């Protein structure tokens, strides 16, 4: 049975605890039913740093629909400015039709507490590692997203299904769409993530999507591994 997440206390705890989103179980959950088709609230949660009040996971696990496509705003931990030329438009939304993913992209930076990549507070929304490259650059455009929470699947829950040849669409701030084709999916222990293989400069225009996978550590409430999908610009 899915219970509605009480975002207020829960998100505050997630933000404080860090790690692989050690989600606390909802406290004092009201038994309000989960709407099946309600789009989540726009990205107010991560943009202002305040807990989302209406973010829910639909029963059908369809991802949030990006209705308007607002320019992404920075999250609470401001990323350092990207060093790629400013002429390249930033990625603002991602769409993966084959697995029903559609999300705006929030700009992510680096967490000050441990130097790890920042991830969105909102489980339904994907993030773009804004210190890194953008489509068209000679470096990976890295997108991050949660795989699940205690309430159920999150935005990148089905990432593991991506087979080579699958297309991923990245909408850019100038209105154009960059299309990438999946090349390889890999799994790495987080403690030994090869950071330059994932985030380091590349010869090609490459997109990477990162989420969690592998054995789940029930004490730490986090996964041991990262799933990394690499796709190449078509």
């Amino acid at each position: 049975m899915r219970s509605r997440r009480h975002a207020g206390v829960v998100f505050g705890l997630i933000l404080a605890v860090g790690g692989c989103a050690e989600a606390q179980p909802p406290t004092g959950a009201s038994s309000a039913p989960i709407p099946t088709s309600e789009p989540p609230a726009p990205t107010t949660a991560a943009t202002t740093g305040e807990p989302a009040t209406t973010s829910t996971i639909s029963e059908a696990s369809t991802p949030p629909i990006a209705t308007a496509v607002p320019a992404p705003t920075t999250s609470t931990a401001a990323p350092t400015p990207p060093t790629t030329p400013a002429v390249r438009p930033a990625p603002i939304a991602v769409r993966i039709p084959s697995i029903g993913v559609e999300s705006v992209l929030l700009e992510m930076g680096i967490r000050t507490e441990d130097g790890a990549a920042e991830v969105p507070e909102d489980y339904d929304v994907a993030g773009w590692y804004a210190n890194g490259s953008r489509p068209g650059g000679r470096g990976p455009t890295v997108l991050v997203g949660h795989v699940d929470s205690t309430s159920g699947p999150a935005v990148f829950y089905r990432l593991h299904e991506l087979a080579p040849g699958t297309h991923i669409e990245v909408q850019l701030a100038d209105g154009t769409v960059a299309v990438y084709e999946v090349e390889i999916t890999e799994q790495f222990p987080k403690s030994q993530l090869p950071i330059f293989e994932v985030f380091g400069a590349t010869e090609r225009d490459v997109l990477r999507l990162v989420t969690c996978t592998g054995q789940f550590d029930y004490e730490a409430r986090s996964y041991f591994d990262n799933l990394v999908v690499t796709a190449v610009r078509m």
Partner: protein
Amino acid sequence: MSVSLAKKAGAAGAVTIAVLVGGGSATAADEEVPEPASFTSAFTAAATPDEIINPDGMAVAGEEGATGTFNFRINSDEEIICYDIMLNGVTPPYMSMARSATHIHEALAGQSGPPRVTFPDPEDAGDGTLRSSGCLQGPFTTGIEAEGGGDTGDGFTLKEIEANPAEYYGDTHTMDFVAGAVRGQLSQVPLGGVPTGGGGTAPNERGSTNMALYVSAGAIVIAAAAGATLARRRVTN
């Protein structure tokens, strides 16, 4: 550590030997050290021939078709920088007035600035690329005299890169491209794994132990990280 002090063919007079310039402290610093146990930050730079700015502040072409990848891991508490520099399509010989021709300089994109750290010039890796890797401990000297005297590495610490990586760029200089064959500004890279997801319901949690799950035909299979978790099957409660 190799020091590249190539003279331009036909140049009148001798090129000043860099180690004699800048206070004579060139041998006391820039020590090659083992990799430290941990790092405080990491950076990458995609170096291209399109971003070269000469000392007069003018954009000039680097080596067409060449690329470089500069990866750095820094421990700013111990003043150690570990470097892994790969060049593709850069044609030696190297040339620089500094201790070597491969540097981190201080300047924003579109500007030129002095070198702060020098690295051994990449050498033939046997696969058509040039490569250089290791770890250096400061304080650092470049062999280039700073305005007002001293060395352009004087007073520089790795914490400055951590404070604003966009103000630093990696490059390499060759005889044919003295202003730089390739150059790229530094951008920060996260340390460690990405913390995404905490519900325990992801499918792989109960399933696959394969590292490379899907590979397209023709793609190179990238091996799992050393010491991968196949043996680490934690007993869950």
